[in-house]
């Protein structure tokens, strides 16, 4: 099946305003999204997520590479491609604060060239589905942040496009509203059969909603896999060793040289080593180093990791991780 979004070898570099230094914001990024999928686009600040999202939206022109939305190259046919995509890029700032909820929805629908009849029907439907009917006459600046965020998402739904891009949809929301928005996003995929791409720093949201994640770091895709696969990978590979004493300086140096992803917590009674063992033989090497000074191993076990830890390991590891 042909993907609904196909990003191929996309590059984008910026010149810094003052120093004129060239910064490679996106470096040969490729990934695809299938219809009905929820993809999480992750990365630390300045990784190139927003640049990638803006290029998919056609708001930024890539230096090279192609982006196809429903088979349409958005670098060549931007306006045609925009019929298939909508976005919430700046959350509640995407709205007119001095217009009411209904007026915002009607304006944005009209701006896509929809007829008055179409606008009326669509707006009524969205007010009902997003539980905004009671607030329809309220000015946006009087709404809570959560309500504003819901409205911004409703605006993106006006387009009836195949794909919705959401940049930080839960940023600044309290727990309850964040949960509500999360449920809303799930229902968008289920009930409206849309494809969703979410960029977020909130790992709980990503873990809860997304089927797959693409992690970008320093402009490059470092991981493109299903969340469960990433979790399984790190669950299997992360170990904790409880030692009956301290390591010697020589042992510590050897371990640090051999295992870059290692945390040592010294304690005269129970020291611990947390380490990721990506190759099977690595565990024997670790035991060899411990055996050098006959350091007692009291116990060892797999570490339970959450998605945030997985993300941190991937980003800090810096190397491309291939799974499955």
């Amino acid at each position, binding site marked *: 099946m042909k993907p609904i979004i196909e990003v191929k070898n996309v590059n984008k570099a*910026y010149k810094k305003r003052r120093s004129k230094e060239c910064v490679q914001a996106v470096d040969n990024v490729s990934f695809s999204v299938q219809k009905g999928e929820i993809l999480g686009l992750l990365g630390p600040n300045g990784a190139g997520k927003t*640049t990638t999202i*803006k290029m998919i*939206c*056609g*708001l*930024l*022109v890539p230096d090279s590479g192609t982006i196809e939305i429903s088979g349409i190259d958005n670098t060549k046919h931007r*306006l*045609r491609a*925009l*019929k298939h*995509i*909508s*976005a919430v*890029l*700046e959350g509640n*700032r*995407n*709205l*007119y*604060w*001095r*217009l009411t909820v209904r*007026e915002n929805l*009607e*304006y*944005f*629908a*009209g*701006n*896509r*060239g*929809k*007829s*008055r009849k179409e*606008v009326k029907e669509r707006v009524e439907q969205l007010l009902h589905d997003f539980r905004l009917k009671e607030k329809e006459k309220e000015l946006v600046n009087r709404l809570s942040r959560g309500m504003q965020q819901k409205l911004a998402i409703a*605006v993106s739904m006006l*387009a009836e496009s195949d794909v919705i891009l959401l940049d930080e949809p839960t940023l600044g929301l309290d727990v309850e509203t964040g949960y509500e928005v999360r449920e809303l996003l799930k229902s968008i995929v289920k009930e409206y059969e849309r494809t969703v791409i979410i960029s977020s720093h909130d790992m709980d949201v990503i873990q809860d909603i997304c089927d797959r994640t693409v992690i970008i770091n320093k402009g490059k895709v470092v991981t493109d896999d299903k969340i469960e696969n990433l979790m399984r990978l790190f669950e299997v590979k992360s170990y904790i060793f409880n030692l009956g004493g301290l390591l010697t300086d020589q042992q510590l140096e050897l371990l640090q040289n051999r295992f870059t992803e290692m945390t040592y917590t010294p304690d005269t009674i129970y020291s611990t080593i947390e380490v990721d063992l990506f190759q099977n033989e690595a565990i024997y090497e670790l035991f060899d180093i411990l055996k050098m000074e006959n350091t007692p191993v009291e116990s060892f076990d797999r570490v339970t990791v959450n998605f945030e830890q997985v993300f941190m390991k991937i980003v800090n590891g810096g190397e491309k991780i291939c799974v499955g």
Partner: protein
Amino acid sequence: MRWINLFHANLRKEYIELKRYLPNTIAMVATFYFIFLGLFAGIQFIGDPSSAEANTQYLIVNYVFWFLGLMVIQTIGWEITNEAMRGTLEQLYMSPMGVWRIMAARLASSVVLNIMIITVLLFVTMATTGQWLNIDIITIIPILILTIISMMGVGFMIAGISIIWKQVSAFLQILQFVLAGLTFISVKQAPFLVYFPFVKGVDLVRDVMINGVSLSQIGIADFGILFGNAIFYFVLGLIIFILCERIAMRKGLLAHY
């Protein structure tokens, strides 16, 4: 049909905002009127009494057209800057209609609403001065439409510049004086001004409103110049706007303020 829907959506938004920002609208109208009173008093008390009547008539037409020109030419530039500040500009760029169409619809809506205000102000100024001008709608409307199209072209040029350099307010202030020069000087005194945007149109309207010239008395050549001027500046404005858009999209300047 999509154009009409787009125009309707923008007309409604402009009307709602005009109502919701009523104090601003009232302040704008009051400022217009008080500045006019000041200029009128100048003619009455300082100017030559023998030409006071003609000067007042010229003042009314020139001042009203300067105000109209200011509104049409500055609107899109201000709108782009405001949308970028609010954070809604990128959302407009997500419309498959294209921003130039949205801005054209918004400008047309703004012109419709502002012409209503300006018409009221025109009658108020005429009543204040006691100088009743020739309001020949059939002659004025085609000239006005072509003049506004030419003004819209200049508006698109400024909007294009404001996409790249968002802080154009200082430039827009200087523009007020350039506009005053273009609307106040007659083509008869400086014939080369005929190649400038909207000057010919303002000149023809002056002829209609002050000298009572009718549609049949305006030559085809004059209309040809007006038409050519309108199309030239509108197309040029649009080309500059679209080029600036492309630069902004390449450099990532759309959302920057």
